[in-house]
C-alpha cells in the first residue's frame, strides 16, 4: 500500500473515531431526545463513514472492502429510518421537545417577531407550556388526530 494511502486511511480512522466519541458525548450532554438524535446522527454519518472508509483503504481492493461498503450503506440508509421513527414515535407519544427562539409562521416559514404568534395556529403543546419561557412553534391543527391516541405506556 502506498504510504500516502496508509496515511489517509489512518487520518480517516482517527477522524471517524473522533466523531463517534463526539456523537456519544452529545448523546449524554444534550437535554432531550430530539437534540440527542442530532448528536447521534453526527456519529452515524461522519463517524461511521470515516471509520469504515479508513478501514476500506486499509483493506485495499478486496472482498473485505466490499463488505465494509455494504455495511456502510446499510447503516447509512437505516439510521435515518431509525431516527425518523424514534422522533415520530416520541412526538406522537406526546414527548414535548424543548424549544427556544421566536415563533415561525408555519405556512410561510417567516420568522415572527418575539412574543407575536400566528393566531390561526392552535397548538396543543403551548397550552401546557404557558409558563415556559421557551416559545413554541409548531405544527398546530393539522397533526393527525389519531397520532395522539397511542397508549402512554412509557
Amino acid at each position: 500500500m502506498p504510504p500516502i494511502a496508509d496515511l489517509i486511511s489512518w487520518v480517516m480512522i482517527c477522524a471517524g473515531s473522533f466523531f463517534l466519541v463526539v456523537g456519544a458525548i452529545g448523546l449524554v450532554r444534550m437535554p432531550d431526545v430530539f437534540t440527542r438524535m442530532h448528536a447521534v446522527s453526527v456519529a452515524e454519518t461522519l463517524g461511521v463513514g470515516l471509520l469504515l472508509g479508513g478501514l476500506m483503504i486499509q483493506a485495499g481492493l478486496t472482498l473485505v472492502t466490499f463488505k465494509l461498503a455494504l455495511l456502510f450503506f446499510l447503516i447509512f440508509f437505516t439510521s435515518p429510518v431509525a431516527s425518523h421513527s424514534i422522533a415520530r414515535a416520541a412526538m406522537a407519544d406526546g414527548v414535548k421537545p424543548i424549544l427556544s427562539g421566536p415563533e415561525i409562521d408555519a405556512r410561510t416559514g417567516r420568522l415572527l417577531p418575539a412574543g407575536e404568534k400566528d393566531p390561526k395556529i392552535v397548538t396543543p403543546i403551548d397550552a401546557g407550556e404557558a409558563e415556559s419561557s421557551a416559545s413554541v412553534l409548531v405544527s398546530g391543527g393539522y397533526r393527525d388526530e389519531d397520532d395522539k391516541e397511542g397508549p402512554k405506556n412509557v
Partner: protein
Amino acid sequence: MFIVAMIAVLIALALAVFRALAGPNVFDRVLAANFIGVLAILLLAVLGFLNGRPEFLDVGLVYAFLNIVGTYAVLKFFRYGALGGEAPPEEALDERKGASGVHEI
C-alpha cells in the same frame, strides 16, 4: 492504530450505555440502544481487522439488518402496545390506499 478506533468505539459504547440506563424516557433508551447496535457493528469490523478475522464482518452485516428491525419493533410496540395485531387503523385509513405496498398475492 486499530486500537485507537477500538477504544473510541468502547468509550462511545460506555456513554451510550449510560444513556440507555439513564433514560429518562423509552425513546432515549431506544435511541441509545440503536446507537449501541451501530457501535457493535463497528466494533465487529474493527475487531475483524485487529484479530485478522474478516468473518466478523458477516456477523456485522447480519447485525445491521437486525438492528433496524429491532429498533422499529420496539418503537412500534411502545407506540401501539402491540407489534402487529390487526393493522392499526392509521394504516387502513391511509388516503393513498392502493399504493401503500399492501397487496394480495
